């Protein structure tokens, strides 16, 4: 078997020992697994750093993946699959054209589903390098990217991932993500989260980005992040760990302290520290299919504790008991439900719910 034009940028990987090449490919497969554990990613990083030949082998994999990016488009992948199916080696085995028809069905199905069917898949290896991901309301999802970086998508969120030689770009289209970038190698392209309002460039490994009301909200947890509003180059700002800022396309506004509790959602919790009930309900509503609201006269009650977002009914019951408010549920005839908290017989002060003691805070 001769070399491939795909290898042109890492021609010297031909000097990689066969067992190293085999291991590299095994890593690739392990990292593709939908449930790849953080420990696996850490072990893979360590392997890369262990020996220059390991890194060389991995670079070969990345450079070939660079040649495969158009297969990232699900339509192209399906078309490729259909075209490759009836090859010579296949013709004998089964029925080539039947298998092509089958693959074609996938293309057409896809056309009808608008890509949703593919988005729902976690296991999209070659496409994964540039695939789009989204979560449903109430869903949370962890993605391990091509470079080992990790993205956790919060409820009702969507991202595009575009990696190339120049940058590792994650485009946040909706919702909220927590980023944990892989070891920044000097040769690794910069990691950037882009929104309509501008970019947040990782200068440290951990930060969260959230889209809300036409603004982008960045919480820097470790290291620092460089914010660049889209329409104002001069307004770029480096934000260090422990700060949370918001920005529009023209300016960075606001700066409040932040810590890990603001991303407790990544473990499935909302952590409230004497939060206004109205704000808390607004936050909780992001995870609920039902419309949630509260009456203005109880909006300023204070809520503290950690609440599991996977069980909204239980959270509401807790609020009802501890705050002494009532839950009024209205089901519309078309099936939509709305839940409103209203003043109860003996509305009281701060709630410290039972859920708080059982909740685990993120490390």
């Amino acid at each position, binding site marked *: 078997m001769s070399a491939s034009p795909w290898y042109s940028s890492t021609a010297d990987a031909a000097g990689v020992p066969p067992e190293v090449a085999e291991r590299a490919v095994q890593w690739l497969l392990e990292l593709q697994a939908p449930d790849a554990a953080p420990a696996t990613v850490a072990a893979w990083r360590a392997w890369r750093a262990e020996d220059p030949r390991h890194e060389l082998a991995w670079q070969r994999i990345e450079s070939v993946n660079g040649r495969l990016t158009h297969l990232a488009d699900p339509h192209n992948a399906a078309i490729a699959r259909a075209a490759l199916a009836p*090859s010579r080696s296949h013709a004998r085995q089964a029925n080539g054209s039947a298998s*092509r028809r089958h693959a074609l069905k996938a293309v057409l199905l896809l056309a009808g589903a608008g890509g949703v069917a593919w988005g729902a898949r976690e296991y999209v290896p070659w496409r994964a390098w540039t695939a789009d991901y989204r979560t449903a309301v109430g869903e949370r999802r962890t993605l391990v990217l091509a470079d080992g970086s990790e993205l956790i998508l919060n409820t009702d969120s969507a991202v595009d991932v575009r990696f190339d030689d120049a940058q590792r770009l994650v485009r946040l289209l909706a919702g909220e993500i927590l980023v944990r970038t892989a070891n920044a190698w000097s040769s690794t392209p910069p990691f950037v989260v882009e929104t309509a309002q501008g970019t947040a460039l990782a200068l440290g490994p951990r930060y969260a980005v959230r889209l809300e009301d036409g603004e982008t909200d960045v919480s820097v947890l470790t290291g620092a992040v460089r914010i660049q509003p889209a329409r104002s180059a001069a307004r770029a700002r480096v934000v260090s760990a422990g700060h949370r800022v918001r920005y529009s396309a023209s300016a960075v506004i606001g700066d409040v302290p932040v810590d890990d509790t603001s991303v407790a959602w990544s473990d499935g919790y909302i952590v409230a520290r004497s939060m206004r009930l109205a704000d808390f309900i607004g936050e909780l509503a992001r995870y609920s299919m039902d419309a949630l609201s509260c009456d203005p006269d109880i909006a300023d009650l204070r809520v503290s504790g950690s609440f599991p977002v996977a069980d909204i009914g239980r959270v509401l019951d807790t609020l009802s008991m501890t705050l002494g408010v009532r839950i009024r549920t209205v089901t519309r005839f078309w099936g939509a439900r709305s839940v409103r908290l209203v003043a109860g017989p003996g509305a009281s002060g701060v709630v410290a719910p039972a859920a708080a003691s059982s909740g685990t805070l993120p490390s």
Partner: protein
Amino acid sequence: MNSPAICLPTTVATLYSDHHSWLKGWLQRRLGNAEQAADLAHDTFIRLLSSERVPVTLKEPRAFLTTVAQHLVSNHWRREKLEKAYLDVLAQVPEEYAHSPEERAILLETLVELDRLLDGLPAIVRHAFLLSQLDGRTHAEVAAALDISIPTVKRYILKALQRCYFADLSVA
């Protein structure tokens, strides 16, 4: 068993002047098309010029030329076959997913290379690979579809991946 014949040093130029017409005829018999034969004969010599694979002495220059040309012919056939399959698929894809000529060329190029790299793998290995990497099916789904075990699926996928990424290392 050495032949007593004296072998003169061979250059691409002498090969060309001595055997170009013959090669064109040989190719035309295989391809049944004069124009394609001329193209591939041309490509054969281009390839020789750009590689250092011409032995200094050639006892069987025509056998050598046909080996190189045969490789180009099978590439040509593979490409033609794929292109046809590709166009067949495209013909059935809704308008809005039609590709520009550039996109077509790039995708076809990728397909040809992928097909070439996977060539020679057992059909079932290739099948497992395509189901997993292009269809995005899980190992369990591939195992069920091909009626093999999950460890076997993994082994097959690894084998094909090895081909794609490190074909030049000729790992088994």
